[in-house]
């Protein structure tokens, strides 16, 4: 199989996995799901590093630098803000805190 066909196969299968895994997320967690998924879309950071690392021309370097910076903001900010949100979700009584 050529590379394109393999790529398309991977894409289609991963999409189905995504539909299966995510369709069960309860509405309460929709915002963290979205910002967490958003952080995962920052996987383009590895493309940005590859592009910036190989960049030959000055223009390629500059574009690579912007790409790495933007992708890093997406990744770091995305995971951190998701963690912050999820840290706020709690149950009625946290165990050990309520003597009654």
């Amino acid at each position, binding site marked *: 199989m050529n590379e394109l066909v393999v790529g398309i196969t991977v894409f289609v299968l991963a999409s189905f996995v995504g539909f299966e895994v995510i369709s069960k997320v309860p509405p309460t*967690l929709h915002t963290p799901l979205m910002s967490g998924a958003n952080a995962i879309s920052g*996987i*383009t950071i590895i493309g940005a590093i590859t592009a910036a690392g*190989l960049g030959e021309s000055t223009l390629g370097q500059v574009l690579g630098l912007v790409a790495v910076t933007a992708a890093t903001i997406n990744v770091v900010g995305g995971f951190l803000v998701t963690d912050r949100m999820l840290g706020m979700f709690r149950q009625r009584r946290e165990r050990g805190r309520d003597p009654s």
Partner: protein
Amino acid sequence: MTEILYLLCAAAFIIGLKQMNGPRTARQGNLLAGVGMLAATVITLVAEDIVNWGTIAGGLALGTALGVWAALRVRMTAMPQMVAAFNGFGGIASALVAAVAVVDGDVAELPLETTVTIILSIVIGAVTFTGSFVAFGKLQGIVTGRPLLFRGQQVVNGLITVVAISVAIWTLTEANPVGYWILGGIALLIGVLAVVPIGGADMPVVISLLNSFSGLAAATAGFVIGNDALIIGGALVGAAGLILTIQMTEAMNRSLANVLFAGFGSGEGGGPAVMSDRPVKRATADDVAIALGYADSVMIVPGYGLAVAQAQHATRELATELEERGVSVHYAIHPVAGRMPGHMNVLLAEADVPYEQLLDLEQADPQLPQTDAVLVLGANDVVNPSARDDPESPIYGMPILNVDRAHTVVVVKRSLAPGFAGIDNPLFYAENTLMFFGDAKDALEQTLIALREL
């Protein structure tokens, strides 16, 4: 070997998302996905023949600093615009990955399948970038939240699409690098023109769709550089965004095309924004305190007005006081309440409301007829009985919370102004409705004082 390691990272994303299915495991899932991302970054740094270490180190340092600063500083009420901005950064990064392939590669030498994916990556990434930042501007209040429409908009959009397709064909056949830049420019313009006509209350759909696009942009960038981790990660996000998009449009009983192109809420398609002069029952803080304090069960229905007024903590304090009086308190959350999916849940979680008290539409609606008092805080269209009773209404058929079926309804609202859809709400004039005019936070604080004196 490198491919296997990347595959493990992709597996971490899938398991991480899977753990997002429950509030107990969600945080761990996010952490796992983050570890997968860190691992993927390290693998790339080690495995690629990198020459420009300075550029990469600079980008990583700057991006980390800005990302940490933004993530720690943002208020929970501003989460929709934060997610929009992060989406935009992801989109532009993917577009630039493809752009570097044009700048430093010889596009005339590349096979057609690669040039097609380069074009897709640039176009989707650029649309995501400007679309997300227009959405950011609208949510932040920099750009008006009303739909902006101009004469001949559809014609202009049609022409731009025709030009874009022509340029794409020319670029592919002539293998001319200039074509990619023109396409990138057109795509940036399309992103702006596509989001500008969409009103604020439709933002849950727009943000979900842009989220999906940022995933697709990453996946196409994966095709350009031949990396499966990007393709898998991008596809997962594309699917996640699409699921939320569909759920949001279903919650409004509208098609995606209607949300994107109809200019809903501009007053043209919608019904007349006529203010009714029917009498309403005005309530004071004391009236509201009595209605809530002597109820057995209270359902709180939050909307975007709660976020605007930053009233989540005041809401929680009032609820705690009611619970101490023996009142059972729950929250009914409509899927499109607020400006992004789950917006209200995050706000209330910030105010320490336990998630068991947060009910979705299907759970809450059947309980409403047995509820003594409903407290509507800054919500309007999602509790409008016209959606159920009036076939002429533009929102007819939209699933609503039938709060008018409860014994008493208290609506906290700044004025009688119609909601986003520009239509009057019969709920306000109903026999069992008390209108408490004022800012949600002030109103709740006054009610709390009155309740303590009861």
